[in-house]
């Protein structure tokens, strides 16, 4: 089965992430970029499926030139090839633009049986782009999967969120997004790292990918950030004395902060 995996390069969550004051865009150059950890799990899921059922894994990534490192990591794990949508015209795209662009690229590939993605990126946190891509491509979206079973042309997942769990079934082709519980991703072998450099990575321009310039990037985004205010430095905070009612005092504080 031929599988597409969507990957994204994001700032390391342990680093200090900053938004540019001028346009509110994430400053991707300011931190160490990494392959978003959930994508490692999506790649792992894809590899397990092709190891069991045959087929190949194509990585699709929309991101700046530096995203090549993240793509290479996915190739080192065992993916076969990649499409890197790196045209600068796409910078500052909103979620809708991103979903449409990714759908356009996927739609241009041959015989895609399954699209795999992580549930959500650790930087944007919209947590909907996979389902949006599926909607554009008119594919069933089976999201928050913690378990995937493929039987012939039918795929079943166990979808688990904090509301509970359900089983979802669909006919291929379909799209699945995975949660952290899906698997433990493999470490790339050194053989895989060496082999990655020979694997094909195409970098289509937006024109070649069929994306209209007038609809791409910050200038035509469907939402716009109008102001960005960093949090003021921490003040000392409140100290409570526990005379046996410490728990109650904490509860009052949390309720006032609308946390409970």
């Amino acid at each position: 089965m031929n599988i597409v995996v969507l990957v994204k390069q994001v700032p390391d969550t342990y680093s200090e992430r900053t938004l540019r004051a001028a346009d509110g865009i994430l400053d991707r150059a300011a931190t160490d970029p990494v392959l978003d950890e959930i994508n490692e799990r999506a790649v792992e899921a894809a590899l397990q499926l092709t190891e069991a059922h045959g087929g190949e894994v194509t990585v699709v990534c929309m991101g700046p030139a530096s995203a090549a490192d993240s793509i290479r990591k996915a190739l080192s794990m065992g993916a076969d090839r990649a499409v890197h949508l790196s045209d600068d015209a796409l910078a500052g795209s909103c979620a809708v633009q991103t979903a449409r662009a990714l759908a356009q690229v996927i739609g241009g590939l041959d015989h895609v049986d399954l699209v795999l993605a992580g549930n959500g990126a650790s930087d944007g946190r919209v947590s909907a782009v996979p389902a949006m891509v599926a909607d554009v491509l008119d594919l069933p979206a089976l999201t928050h999967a913690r378990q995937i079973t493929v039987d012939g042309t039918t795929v079943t997942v166990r979808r688990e969120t904090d509301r509970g769990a359900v089983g979802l079934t669909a006919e291929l082709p379909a799209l699945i997004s995975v949660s952290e519980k899906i698997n433990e991703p493999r470490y790339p072998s050194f053989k895989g790292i060496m082999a990655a450099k020979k694997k094909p990575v195409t970098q289509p321009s937006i024109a070649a990918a069929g994306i209209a310039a007038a609809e791409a990037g910050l200038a035509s985004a469907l939402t716009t950030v109008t102001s960005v205010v960093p949090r003021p430095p921490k003040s000392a905070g409140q100290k409570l004395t526990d005379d046996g009612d410490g728990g109650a005092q904490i509860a009052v504080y949390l309720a006032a902060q609308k946390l409970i």
Partner: protein
Amino acid sequence: MLSTEEQAVVGTVADWVDREVRPVVRDMEHANTYPDKLIEQMKEMGIYGLAIPEPWGEAPVSMPCYALVTAELSRGWMSLAGAMGGHTVVAKLLLAFGTREQQDRYLPKMATGEIRATMALTEPGGGSDLQAITTRARRDGDSYVVSGAKTWITNARRSRLIALLCKTDPDARPRYKGVSILLVEHGPGLTVSKDLPKLGYKGVESCELMFEDYRAPGDAVLGGVEGRGFAQMMKGLETGRIQVASRALGVARAAFDDALAYAQQRESFGKAIWKHQSVGNYLADSATKITAARQLILYAAERFDAGQRCDMEAGMAKLFASEIAMQVALDAVRVHGGYGYSTEYDVERYFRDAPLMIVGEGTNEIQRNVIAAQLVKRGGLDRG
């Protein structure tokens, strides 16, 4: 500068150490537990194939890359670097000196770690004087009969291939011309007689081997010709010295990283302790020594790959890295104060592991002999 791929190799090992080794090492090491799962993961990554090129292996790396991979393993747990060090030396010996048949027999399985290899040089009575070894391999028909004892052989039980330094001609003069390396495997007549208890370097077994009328096949001599073992081993020790130097670098790095982090968190007299000059000085000196050691190791490694004479340089790297690692480990204890003495922190393990690299794989006293002799022979240091 390492290629992008080799940087990715070192980076993968570093990530693996942070995610898989550091969370478990303290308890495992204290319990002297053999790190089965970690070693299996090392095999899967390809650590045991780092020195093995096609057609027997698939992803060999340069000596500088190998040194940095070793340092990363050691940064997590020095014993892990010890579980693959001798193996790589034996692989390089087979590549440099083995017959095609010997290479085909061992290298493919060594690349996957299915066969692990170790060297056996040191004898209970012998120590540094390798020409005075007494382990004897006597030709008898179409096999060798081996008698003698070796000690401090790490990974002895789990290695299927032992590169044994022995005398095939005790009467040869000069004495080194009677020395051969025999490729032996476990079998009748070879007993792993005991596991030696150690200050550090825990988890992996270091043993005494007893050979009593052990029979090795007639084609077990490395390279097929007797009397070349001493020269072969000397070449192998170049890799060994770089390996041990890299182990020391890893331990020093771990000790320094912990001390740097601690010194920023811990406060005394109203400020983070790194701001006290004494503490800041330890950090500055440690970082300087580590940076110098790293450069010296890479220098020796690059010369090795370029085919240049590097026995002195590898000896310098081993000498320097192991000595500074001990200093850095002690200074890390100082920075941690009382907690440096606590077994609930990792610092004490670095302190116990560091001395091995001073006395093992050629004591530092021997390294100094080697360096001094080379200095005279070469007419001093290179200009520029």
